[in-house]
């Protein structure tokens, strides 16, 4: 069976990002495809750390800290693309 594509897992990632932000900051947010997570300040430092931990646990991938940058974490779709090639 083929691995799900980035577009297929994006909704899961968006929900996870929203949950992490809620847990880390107390803010309720609904993440959409167009949200710029770092640029807009949605992902603050604590949310970023908790997101990396959550991604590793949920998708069983090793996130190299050197990959945690504006390109790979720009949006829920960018994160989905990053995760999908590492599963």
């Amino acid at each position, binding site marked *: 069976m083929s691995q799900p594509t980035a577009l297929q897992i994006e909704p899961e990632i968006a929900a996870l990002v929203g949950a992490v932000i809620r847990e880390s*900051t*107390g*803010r*309720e*947010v*609904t993440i959409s495809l167009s949200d710029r997570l*770092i640029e807009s*300040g949605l992902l*603050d*430092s*604590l949310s*970023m*750390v908790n997101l*990396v931990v959550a991604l590793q646990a949920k998708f069983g991938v090793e996130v190299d*800290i*050197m*990959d*945690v*940058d*504006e390109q790979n*974490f720009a949006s829920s779709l960018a994160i989905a693309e990053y995760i999908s090639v590492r599963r």
Partner: protein
Amino acid sequence: MMFAQLRDVARSRRDTVAISNESSNITYGVLFDRALAFREFFANLGRPFVLLALPGGPEFTLVQLAALGAEAIHAPLPHKSTTREASSVIDLVAPDVVVVESLQLQAGMLSALREPAVILSFAASDEGSKMGAHTVVTSAQVERGHSTWHTEARDHGIPAEVAMVQFTSGSTGSPKGVLLTQAALLANLAGNSDHLARFEGRSVFCTVPQFHAMGGAVVLEHVYAGSPTHVTNQFVPAEDVRRMQASDAVALLGSPNYFSLALRLGVLGAKHLPGLRSFTLGTAAVDVETIRQLFAAYPDASVHVRYGLSESVGALTRLDLRAGDEPPPPGLVGSLVGDATFAEALPRLGDGEPREVVVRSSCNALGQLISRNIWSPLLSGDSRNELRTGDCGYVDDHGRLHVRGRTTTFLKVNGYRISPFEIEVALRAYPGVNDVVVVGPSDPVMGQKIVAAIEMHVGVAAPTELEYARHCQAELAAHKRPHRYVWFEQLPRTHAGKPDRNRILREIES
């Protein structure tokens, strides 16, 4: 004074990088040459009040140094301030010049301007733009020496010796503008010169925003000490690591929260950053575990803990640690820096009740702006040079200060000094809210958390957390937004009918 000192530093390091951020860097030579053009621009306006709303880095520093050179008054403001936050500052002082990245990016902040101002934009695309009664000038026009604008700076009722205003949360919900002189800025450089000399010619990396009192102080300290200084405006771990690697950074400066998170992510350690030798943690309660982990990763490093306040430039005390030293007990913030002395004797450690820390220092602020054209002195004592810090503490046998909390209700969150009253004012503006009390239960990572206790008018349904969080997002900068909301049918109150903050805090903690 400051400008002449910069010229001396720049002369011997013209081609060395002075400062960088995520998008650019600038050498000492170019920094000084460009600052000359901006200095002339400010000087032509008289003695303007310059609101500096740029991200930290080369352009921020360039404008700051030019303002100091022109004997203008400059005041840093977070470049992502909301309209409401900008309004609260503009309530205190009408800026003659507002410096922004672009008209578009900071449109909300600029909409708070009530009097005509010169808007200095660093976006080339803004050249020729119009904005109501304001005059729009681009940085490129300033550097070309093009000067068709003629605005006379207003009289702000600020003492002549004031060079900088550091905005800080006030106790009434409105910001206060702390008045700093060039003499205080210079005294801070002199008071730290021995410590800073260790970093001369070596790169340092600062993660505290430059608009923040500590971030602003440490950047100037290191730029003047001849250290290429690299600043970051957002937490993107891989980019921080790449920039530290590329610049061979030997020192990292940040809030305890930054270090705690960076350690959790594995950013720090020999794998990625073997060249780091010094860590400076500032402004908030320091977790002993963070210090232990730093020494475990870097056994040969030194760790420096700074304690300071917006009302005094730079650190009042510094604690210098090496691997093998006894772990510092909670509250130990080290020895006084520079010419600072305790103006009132503090009790010995553990001997009775702690007393308020009162400090004499050449770095102390002159006073604070409390409303338009009105300022009040901050210093007391016979020689009018004693600052009451609002913190309580003891001294130990080595003369080191142990802080034991505050005499006021300010919160310290991730190194930011935040007035709960400012947040309460913003939260009460939501329709149907009767009263709000903001408290700060302690948090091992952030120092304190911001928790809002909310009471609605009788019969009015509470908004959802999402609706209320959206309101906060529009009204408050990220570092001031509550981490948690708790709705009370009725807030606990004192006999006088005022919300009982202590009981509310206890209920939230339980």
